[in-house]
Every structure is written in C-alpha cells, then in structure tokens.
C-alpha cells in the first residue's frame, strides 16, 4: 500500500496538486495490516497523519476485513467510496458489511492472489480512475518515477496493470468527492475524562492471565496453508510437528499429524521438511472459498 500511496501521491503532484502521503505500520510481520494515507489539495495542506474522515478507502486485501486491527470501516460515512480488491461482487460486500455508501469492486487477478505483485499499481490506477483528477499520462509518469529502480520491464508491466484498473473504473469516474471541512463553530466535543489514579496492581503493565496468546488467531496471517495428504503420510517420527515453530501441528488418535489452522501462520517449514512430500502448500483463498478446513482424515 505504500507503493500505491506513492504512485497516487506522485500522480496528484504531477497534476498540480499539493500532496502529502505517508505509510503507517506497527511491528513488521507478514499479514500485519499496513495503512497508507494520501492527501491532495489545491491549497496548502496543514492536516497530518491519520485520515479520520476519508473520501476514498482502498482495501487491497479482502482478508483484512475481519481483522479488527485493520479497522477498514473506521471513518466510513454514507459518502465515502469503498474500493475493494476482491473476487466477490461489490453488492456482496455492501450487504455483508451493511454499508450505506458506494462500494466498488476491483476484480482480483486470478493468478496473483497470494503474491499481490501488482497490487500497488492496480490500487493506485483504480483510485485515479475513480477520481476524475488524474490523467492516464500522469499515472504512467508516476509509476515510472516511483518504480524507476526496478527496471523498464517491471515498470511497463505495472503501467499496464494500473491503466487496466484505471479503465475498469470508467463507469464510476468522478464518484469520489471532497467532504465538507470541519467547522469550529459547531463540533462534537471530545469525551475527555480525568484518568483516576489506580493501585499499582491495576496500573502496571502486567499480564496475570496465562495463555492470553490463544486469543490471537495468528492463523489469519496466512496467505498459504499447508495441507497434509494422509495417504502419502507415513506417520514418521513427527518431523513436521518438531519443525513447526508455532507448535501448531499435533497428532490425532491414529498418529497422523493435524494442523491447527487457528494458529498456523503459513510459514510452510513443514512442507519443506516432510520426508515423503505429503504436505502441500495451497493458496489460502482456495480452501476458504471451497469451505474446507484442509483436513483429509
């Protein structure tokens, strides 16, 4: 998304806007949500940081929707356009999320779902297509400038992907508008409170409850899942489970390994270690859409 925000920011800048763009992330790990913000204006921009009331929200990965930390719906109003990279219909998302405002689907590419190789360019292209402020030439120039270090072939492919997404948005061109500025005359007062002084047993940053980590379903971080073919599994000395860094592989009553998909992060070390090659890596969305849990016992 950082790439998307930079392409979009540069494209705005080329078109004569003032621009501010910024990525935002916490601890760096696979599957962690990453945010990026773009502001553009013909005035100078004094706002900064998190955008509380976006005109357009772009979701690059629809698997982030159920993750609370991603907060993809925060700040959405009836006029905010939600652009989502998905294999499903815009209508499905509109109903599922019970949204008042417009939802636009950017059809996910068939062969690019796990890697999302062109997602930055595609999201930027689609956003520009929705805006009615950025021309195709500016898009092309912006991608050339942002991906300059990656070689002409990569640039060309990204330009192609971005412009395809741009053209797909033609029916919705101009649907993103600027919201009214905050007014200082009437505003919602912040719900400030006076923090009480509390006993140290409460107010020190200590965790007394054991096993709190089970509440964090790290399986949501996965982009590919290991699937065990029990027909090929020779019930060896539990090599897959010994190598699993998360202890997410246990043995069932017959001695076959079983993956706990709530906590398997999809590192696929088990796939590499299995002596009989009985563990296969599969794109997460395949199993999710087929409704299986990937267990074959």
């Amino acid at each position, binding site marked *: 998304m950082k790439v998307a925000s930079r392409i979009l920011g540069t494209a705005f*800048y080329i078109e004569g806007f003032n621009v501010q*763009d910024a990525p935002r992330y916490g601890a760096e790990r696979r599957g962690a949500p990453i945010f990026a913000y773009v502001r553009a204006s013909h005035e100078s921009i004094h706002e*900064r940081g998190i955008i509380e009331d976006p005109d357009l929200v772009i979701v690059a990965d629809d698997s982030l929707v159920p993750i609370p930390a991603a907060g993809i719906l925060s700040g959405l109003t009836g006029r905010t356009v939600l652009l989502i990279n998905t294999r499903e219909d815009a209508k499905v998302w509109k109903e599922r999320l019970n949204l008042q405002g417009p939802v636009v689907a950017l059809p996910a590419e068939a062969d690019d779902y796990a890697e999302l190789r062109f997602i930055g360019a595609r999201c930027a292209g689609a956003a520009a297509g929705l805006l009615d402020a950025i021309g195709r030439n500016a898009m092309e120039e912006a991608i050339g400038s942002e991906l300059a270090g990656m070689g002409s072939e990569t640039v060309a492919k990204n330009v192609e992907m971005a412009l395809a997404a741009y053209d797909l948005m033609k029916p919705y061109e101009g649907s993103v508008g600027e919201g009214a500025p905050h*007014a*200082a005359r009437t505003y919602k007062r912040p719900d*400030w*409170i006076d*923090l009480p002084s509390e006993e140290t047993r409460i107010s020190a940053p200590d965790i*007394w*409850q054991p096993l709190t980590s089970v509440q964090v379903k790290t399986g949501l971080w996965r982009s590919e899942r290991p699937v065990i073919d029990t027909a090929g599994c020779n019930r060896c000395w539990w090599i897959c489970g010994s190598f699993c860094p998360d202890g997410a592989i246990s043995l069932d009553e017959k001695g076959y390994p079983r993956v706990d998909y709530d906590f398997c992060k999809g590192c696929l070390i088990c796939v590499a270690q299995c002596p009989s090659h009985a563990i296969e890596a599969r794109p997460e969305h395949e199993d999710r859409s087929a409704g299986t849990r990937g267990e074959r016992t």
Partner: protein
Amino acid sequence: MKGKLLTGNGAAAWGARLARADYIPAFPITPQTEIIETLAAWIDEGQVEARLVTLESEHSMITAAGAAAATGVRVFSATSSQGLLYGMEMIYTVAGWRAPFVLVNVSRGLATPLTLEPDHNDIMATRDSGFLQIHCATCQEVLDTILMAYRIAEDKRVRLPVIVNLDGFYLSFTREPVAIPAEEEVDRFLPPFDPGNIRFRASAPVSQASAVLGAASYSYFRYETHLAAMQALAVHDEAAGAFAEIFGRSYEAVERYRMEEAEFAFVMIGSFATKAKDAVDRLRAAGWKIGLLRPRVLRPYPKGHLLKALAGVRGVAVIDQNISVGRGGVLHTELAAALADMGGRRPVLASFMGGLGGRDISPQEFYEMASVAKKAAEKGEAPPPRLLYTETELREVRRLQAIARADQMEERR
C-alpha cells in the same frame, strides 16, 4: 511551490548532503532511520563524497561524531528514541568539548511500555546537555534547518553541537513537496567549516576537551557553555536572515502563525503544530482571534521571542507531547517560568498533555482546548492540567486489562 516529494528522512539526508558533511558516524541497526541508508547509498554510488563509518552503538557513534568534529571536519549523524538515550552519556560529554556538529533525532516515545510512534520525551531528555535543539514541523523545514544548524553550531560565538528534531512517522515517513536548494546557493549560505583553533594535526600536539578537576574550573567551563548557548538565539536570527535572503524561505526562532491581534494562542512544537494551524484557520473562520506560537528553537529557550509574541494574549493552550513524570508538560512548565518575568497583563495558561506514544490529536480537541483556554482567561484562573484522553480510549484499556486479569494479581500471589 514545485519541488520533489520527499519524506522527512529523505529531506534530512538531503540536508546532510548539501551541507557537504565530511564524516558520518552511524549506528546502522534499529532504531536507526532511512536517513543513514539514503546517505550510504549516495556515497556508494559516488554521488556524495563523505566517509560513513558504522559503529557498534549510539554511545560510540556520538563519541566518534564529537571526536571527528574536534579535528575540524564537518560531521553529521542521526538517531532516534532509545538510541538517543543509549548515547546519553556522550550527549553531555561531547557538548562540553565545544566541537560543533549536527545530529538529527527522529522523535519516538520511550519504553516502557513500548511504542513505535512519536512523542517528544526522547528529545526532552537532552534538554540540559549543552546541545542546542531545533524542532521541525514540515519536511522542507527539516532540510532547511540542517543547513541553518551548521551555521549556528559552527559560529565562533557558539561552537556547540545542534540536534535537529523531527517527529517519527508524521515527518520521517511522510512525503511532502520539498524544494531542494541548488548546491551553489547552499555553498554561499554555508561556506566550508572554518574550525579556527580546533585542530588535530600531525606533529602539533594539542589537548582538547581536557579533563579538569575542581569546582572552579568545572563551573567556569559549564557556565561558559551556557552563555554560548544563549548567544545562539541571536546567531539563529542572523542565520535565518541570510537564509531568507538566499532561499526566500524565512524561519523565526518562534514561528508566529496568525497571531495578529490574537487574544488566544496554541503553543506547541513539532509536526502536530501544522494540525494546530488548521484548527487556527477554522477557529478564525468561526470568529475567534486566535493564533499559534511554535518554538522552533527550544535550546536556547527563546524567552524574549515568546514574551513579545504573547503581549496582549489572554489565554494560552500549551500542548505538550511529552510528560515529565512527577511534574507534567515540559513546555508548559518552561513557559510558566518565563511568564513570571513578564510585565503587564500575563496570559492564563491551560496545560494539555497529548499525542503521547503517537496518539492523534483531533480537530475537535483543538477547538475544545481553545475553548478551555478562553474560559480560563475569562475566569482569570488556570485549569488543572489535562491529559488528552477519552472515555473511548479508557474503555479499550479496560478491555485489555480484563484479558490480562490485572485485578487478579493479589489472588495469584
């Protein structure tokens, strides 16, 4: 203004490049920033002629910076948060050497608990060291301030190291249009470092930064450092004048934004001050006579500039993105102390602590702070200090405390 979209980190690297820093000692691992990465790439590509040396800690990095500056070369370095604190012993030590260089700090909150996001407690910890400090609010200001900082640091009346501070994320990762000055113009503004009597040369023994024992000499050297720092305000203003003449951008020790006929003011430092500008614009549109005062230079403390700007102001909301534990906001404390010497009618101060650990400050909160300052002025009485903290935020903490079973500690013992 047409320029290039640069992050605060990128702007800092450009500042060091255009200042023609000769020597760049760097601790290369986290919490180091892209500033050093960018400079390293330029040196590698032959675009910048400088010596970049990686060191095993910020303690060594700052020692190397001071030592190199004492040989008369121009030195640049950068750090952030915990790194700055790791080097703290040397922050105090090298300031006493009276060897000038520029250190960029990317502000981030300090542990514990851990945060990756910004506040100003790291930079505040260096307040009393002898380093001067200048706080930036935009990426352009980061670049420009580094150039100005060398002029101030190297001035013979000052000769002290300077920290240029920028906020993590809100500047360091944020791209904005930045005009990159032409090399010839920078060279005109910032000629090569004239080290004067600072020199280490073969066969010419000299002892710099000698350890002198005894209170009389200690007091003398320490107070001379203080007096030199106090000179830096005038030197800053001279540098700012020369800067404006060459580059057309002017910087004051204390930025005054829409302070004309202001009855109320926000006082704050750093990048969130641009949010305050936005609030000032909207409050002005709603009929308020309000402005913003933003101390850029915080060491030396720009007392005269502040008192002058506050003449006629009735109520002030001081917003501290730091907390001196056991006292409160540092900016508020220092401004209150400065006001003690103000003749005539003094403004009433309302103290707010907010933006700790990267917590955002919303437009509505700025409006409300203005309103609190106004009520305080009408009443003629300062309100109790307030942490910007909402019921919604406490509810979130309560949820986490319930998971942590924070209330169970006694039982489990």
